């Protein structure tokens, strides 16, 4: 298998790792759950138990009841922790303001990231959530798990934490919500020793990289998103755990321009799969789509009658570059005009596939609005091969980081720094030639910052010589 990890990975067997017995895990009945009241009045939260969508309140109640019925020595965090969290949430609804304190630096020894300190500002009323820190756990690429791993995390987190978690946080980590300062180191030890698993990033460092499902279950993936995500995560462990950057830095890996992990909108460095040869066409399959034997877009519009598939209207007419046509009953693509938007391939996945000469486009500088307004990533490298050991990619990353770490101000994201310096200067620093692909249009204002060396004779001139030609 070409994707074996470099280090042997130990296998986890829940039967060997477990804390709780089957009887303890199923220590309450549906009837008990139905009649269960948490210790605080939570009328608004109970309103959120209605309706079809999974109710986080109903879920939290399960855990609250479960903790109530566990023996005293079967958890190290106060048994009321879930009930107090719900109680405080109700107060936040009543008062329209959060009750989590700002700040508090906690972490594990030698790391600067991965743990987020959290304290209640109503500790007398809700003592069991007085400390309620978050631990970010670095998720495996594209978030596949087995139950042995997940159950072990659950036991660990029920014993040493609140039993509440997020699957997953926005950046991709598995987020464990709510533990005390005392338990941070023990949890880290258990994670690394028993689970063979590290924590993720937070603060001014490399954030946990994340990727789309890629080649694991998608026919569009133009490079191995998981392998690249894993490799860079491992290679940059130091950057991930020990803050040395001006601010956060995010890598995200999309296998194709459909962008399922949204790298173009929310990563400082966005890797998007692409190809530079021709879209592969199966003309028989094209005919099958036209004949109505295959549903367009993989059947994604099945819920409504949109009429018979019309290749002219739905594919050729919607092509943003109009580079497609039907000639003698065959679909023809003028590939040199194609901008690889994916629409035709998405509509007819059985007939059309990305080319075989694949790689990545690299875009830089996306971020949400804080500080200087939202930015989308800017195309910097149109095409780069993405093959192990990815030395070309690492070299590029380090060139960009060197610039950002040298010049970036406190809390300045890469995209903001690029704006402050200007794209031409940035390109000069990282040593890339300018190209029309990097802009939507050439500049509209003519205020060009010519440099002295651009102009023959330089900028130093003699006023006397000038006056010899022009009277004052």
């Amino acid at each position, binding site marked *: 298998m070409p994707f074996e990890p470099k280090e042997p990975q130990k296998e986890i067997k829940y039967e060997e790792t477990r804390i709780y017995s089957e009887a303890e895990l199923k220590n309450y009945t549906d009837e008990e759950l139905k009649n269960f009241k948490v210790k605080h009045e939570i009328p608004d939260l109970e309103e959120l138990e209605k309706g079809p969508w999974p109710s986080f309140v109903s879920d939290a109640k399960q855990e609250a009841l479960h903790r109530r019925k566990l023996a005293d020595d079967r958890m190290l965090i106060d048994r009321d922790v879930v009930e107090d969290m719900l109680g405080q949430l109700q107060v936040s609804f009543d008062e329209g303001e959060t009750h989590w304190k700002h700040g508090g630096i906690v972490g594990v020894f030698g790391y600067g990231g991965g743990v987020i300190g959290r304290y209640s500002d109503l500790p007398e009323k809700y003592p069991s959530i007085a400390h309620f820190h978050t631990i970010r756990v670095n998720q495996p690429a594209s978030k596949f798990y087995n139950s042995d791993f997940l159950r072990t995390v659950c036991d660990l987190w029920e014993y040493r934490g609140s039993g509440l978690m997020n*699957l997953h946080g926005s950046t991709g980590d598995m987020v464990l919500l709510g533990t005390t300062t005392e338990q941070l180191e023990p949890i880290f030890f258990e994670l690394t020793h028993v689970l063979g698993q590290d924590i993720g990033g937070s603060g001014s460092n490399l954030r946990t990289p994340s990727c789309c499902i890629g080649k694991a279950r998608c026919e569009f993936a133009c490079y191995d998103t998981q392998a690249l995500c894993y490799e860079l995560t491992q290679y940059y462990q130091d950057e991930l755990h020990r803050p040395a950057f001006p601010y956060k830095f995010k890598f995200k890996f999309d296998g194709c321009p459909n962008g399922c992990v949204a790298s173009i909108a929310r990563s400082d460095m966005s890797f998007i799969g692409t190809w530079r040869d021709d879209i592969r066409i199966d003309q028989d399959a094209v005919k099958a789509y036209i004949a109505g034997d295959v549903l367009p877009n993989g059947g994604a519009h099945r819920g409504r009658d949109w009429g018979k598939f019309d290749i002219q209207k739905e594919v050729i007419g919607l092509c943003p570059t109009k580079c497609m046509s039907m000639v003698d009953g065959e679909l023809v693509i003028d590939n040199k005009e194609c901008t690889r938007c994916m629409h035709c391939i998405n509509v007819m996945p059985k007939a059309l596939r990305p080319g075989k000469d694949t790689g990545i486009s690299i875009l830089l500088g996306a971020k949400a609005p804080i500080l200087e307004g939202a930015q989308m990533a800017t195309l910097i490298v149109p095409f780069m091969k993405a093959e192990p050991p990815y030395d070309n990619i690492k070299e590029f990353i380090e060139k960009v980081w060197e610039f950002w770490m040298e010049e970036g101000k406190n809390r300045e994201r890469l995209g903001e720094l690029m704006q402050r310096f200007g794209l031409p200067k940035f390109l000069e620093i990282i040593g890339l030639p300018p190209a029309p692909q990097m802009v939507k249009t050439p500049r509209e204002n003519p205020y060009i910052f010519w440099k002295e060396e651009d102009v023959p004779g330089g900028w130093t001139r003699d006023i006397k010589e000038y006056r010899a030609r022009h009277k004052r």
Partner: protein
Amino acid sequence: MALSLDRLGLYDPKDPLKDRLTDLGPRHFWQYFPPVIQNNYGKWAYHEVLEPGILVHVSETGDKVYTVRCGGARFMTVQHVREICDIADKYCAGSVRFTTRNNIEFLVDSVEKLEALKKDLESRKFVSGSYKFPIGGTGAGVTNIVHTQGYVHCHTPATDASSMVKAVADELFEYFQGMTLPAKVRVSMACCLNMCGAVHCSDIALLGYHRKPPIVDHEVIDRVCEIPLAIAACPVGAISPDKTPEGGKTVKIKQERCMFCGNCYTMCQALPLSDKEGDGVTILAGGKISNRISQPKFSKVVVPWLPNTFPRFPEVVENVKKIIEAYAVDANKYERLGDWAERIGWEKFFEKTGLEFTDHLIDDYRLAYDTWRTSTQFKFTDAAWNVSKVAGGIE
């Protein structure tokens, strides 16, 4: 190796470096792939959505994998995750995955297993009645609403997240379980302008918003904050140094300049801005991240503010429904919400959705001019006739 039961487990506070393992990174992904995924890695030929929430991927080798996608609340307890594990053990040899949008996906390799799994998932409900694992979230519908922490775990939110998402998802449930829309509609929620959820490129974005400038906690600011950092954090230069009557260092705020971003509070806990009346929800629409047909684009503010009506946010729900229903009726097949709004023109967007256009929707921040119309190409709507009347142009 068993999990430890000792209070401090393997950790010895007197010797923190003893046997310490660091920088392991995540578990390698390969071991968690079910055999059908390992055997067909990179060999997938095409896929089909068989019904809402059910996908089949077909490999060049002829292998098929069926995926059942279920909504998840993102916030989950270990009890819920254990139930996910039970299902994975029963039908999927212990394997399960999560999507970027917090859906849970179970993968099986035969139609028989698929049918049994579907029935099982549909039967599982919380005692109060909501589904534990609703199937859906594929194709031309609404998938899971990604969101942030809100009051559950965050110190800066202007609203709550889990409750708002629950309220909206209940109302959009038919779109989660159906594929009747012109294209996919991605709804996202972030509880303050920090946008940990990066909602700024969603078809519909719900955004918690503060509307009162920070309160200065003069008594402690000099002790708990780096005042120069707080001043530098303000993108509009509204904060400047000041002295308290006692001569202590503090700051003053030009309130009319504040645009309530909360940056100062992020840097300095002595500048809180949460407030029951001030805080609420902004709705943005028309963004996308895909490069499909049109380029990725930012969402635009279409409702400047709605109150935080806990726990079910009826005003937010109503406005989201107005947008989706107008879009569902009017847009073309494959047309994303933002592409629809651009095709018909934003003036028609407001007419068709019935949303009110107010002065708060005209950009007055940096680069605002880029969004002003410098053309006579526009469409007449009631809003246009109203301006003409006020200007004395028509009766």
